[in-house]
């Protein structure tokens, strides 16, 4: 469904992403993991159209979309959330979601109706009239999710929607994400919370220092020596094999 081929993103002398490729299967939940600063969010920026790659192509349903602007990609069905949440501060929760709903519903009444439905789906129905700025961290993450969902995407790019949540909040939101996929939305997620990655993802890509170093099922990726070394340092894989503990 989504194919990125040999993407390189250079900022001046810094190579943030280096010839990375990735493939997202329709109907799947695909994970993108990697140490801090690996270039994951940069890659998301490239996929959603916020950054123009120095090299490489982004292919969406066999159409080259590398030159399309973010709003055009949203129109095609690619929605993203932001790692650093970006609510419309001055608006309330419902109004925030309605902006997303206006993409496919031009009449105010339809858009508001859609926004309400989405709010219920992500568990924000009680906070609908609250100003976005008064939400808790967990609430803001749900709002990010809701706004993106309101655009009725085919592919949802989730950038660390679980970061900053406590274990019980994570437990609450995992079924929400799975339900979204079950409704036919393909998901590509950046995530540090391994519990969620193991739980949700069918395929995982590992990005380290801008390069794609591994991909496969979550279990196989976690035991990959290259991945362990990327997280824990050179030689870590060998030491772990010696002591017999291979759980990163």
């Amino acid at each position, binding site marked *: 469904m989504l194919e990125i081929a040999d993407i390189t993103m250079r900022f001046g002398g810094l190579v943030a992403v280096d010839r990375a490729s990735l493939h997202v299967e329709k109907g799947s939940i695909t994970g993108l993991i990697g140490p801090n600063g690996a270039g994951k969010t940069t890659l998301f920026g490239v996929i959603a159209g916020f950054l123009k790659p120095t090299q490489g192509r982004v292919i969406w349903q066999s159409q080259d979309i590398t030159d399309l602007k973010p709003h055009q990609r949203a129109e095609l069905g690619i929605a993203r959330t932001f790692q650093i949440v970006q609510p*419309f501060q001055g608006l309330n929760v419902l109004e925030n979601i309605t902006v997303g709903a206006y993409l496919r519903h*031009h009449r105010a009444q339809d858009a508001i109706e859609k926004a309400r439905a989405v709010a219920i789906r992500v568990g924000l129905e009680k906070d609908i009239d609250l100003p976005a700025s008064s939400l808790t961290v967990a609430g803001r993450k749900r709002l990010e999710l809701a706004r993106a969902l309101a655009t009725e995407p085919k592919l949802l790019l989730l950038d660390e929607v679980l970061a900053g949540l406590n274990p019980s909040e994570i437990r609450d939101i995992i079924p929400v994400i799975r339900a979204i996929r079950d409704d036919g939305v393909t998901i590509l997620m950046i995530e540090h919370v391994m519990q969620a990655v193991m739980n949700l993802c069918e395929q995982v890509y590992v990005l380290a220092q801008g390069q794609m170093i591994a991909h496969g099922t979550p279990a196989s990726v976690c035991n990959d020596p290259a991945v362990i070394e990327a997280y824990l340092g050179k030689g870590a894989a060998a030491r772990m094999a010696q002591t017999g503990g291979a759980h990163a």
Partner: protein
Amino acid sequence: MKLQGYLPILVVTALLAVVPFLSNSNTLYNFMVTSLIIALAAQGWNILGGVAGQTSFGHALFFGVGCYTAAMLQFHFGINAWLAFLMALAAGAGAGFIVGFLSFRAGLRGSYFALITLAFAELMRILANASEWTGGAAGLLLKLDPGFANMQFASRASFMWLALAFVFVGLLISRAIAGSRFGAHLVAVRENEDAARALGVDVLTVKLKAISLSGAMTAAAGVLYVQNFLYIDANIGFGAWISIEALLAPLVGGRGLVLGPLIGTFTLHGLGELTKTFAGRVPGIDLMVFAVVLICVVAFASDGMLGLLRRFAPRLAKRIAL
């Protein structure tokens, strides 16, 4: 629920419409007409600066374009006043589009955008002052010829009602935008451009629509000015005074709110007139009042008079759908 939003507009317009029946004083008519013209210019500003959050410091550009298009078409070509009015609207929208295209496409925001608008207005002021076509420093004087066809009226009340009708239409347009998809896009652009883009909002197009509409509305105020005073020169048309009036009124009344500009204008000019009455004709005393009001608003009521209403009488505010 939908009609409820229009009710305050009808009430306010009706209240203003009966003013001529209360008194026939010339001072009152001058006050009303000037305030309504400024309110209309401010409504134009409010769409771009208030709702879409692109602060302009040069709405004199659009006001002046409106003034001069109407005046020159009548003066040089003898074109009918109403036709000239329509062409002035188009010119205002066109000026907005050009300024918007040049600055928004280059990614100018915040104070940079404000400075560019100021520069355009000043540029036009200097050009209008120098060109023979615009009457140079002497300005243009239109022929007095009262009659509906010429958009001139022998009775002061009639002209006040005309200005009020313009303001009313402006309010209706602002209200319709507030409850629409376009309005939601404007607010989204104001609050967070990146988030808006991610949700499929074409930020550049939305801004261009906003500045064109804003330009046309402020140009309409310029036409009213010309038709009322039958005179225009560069310092009136493109002078900083109207840029400041157009931005001050929405700030005081309630930035981004439908009735904000109108309430702000009448608050400011009402207070200005009151001080003049009490303090005598000290030159510039009304401007000092404006300054004090502005400081108070910035310090204590960042959402203006309507914001205060919302804070202290939330139920009333909700009922009139602010």
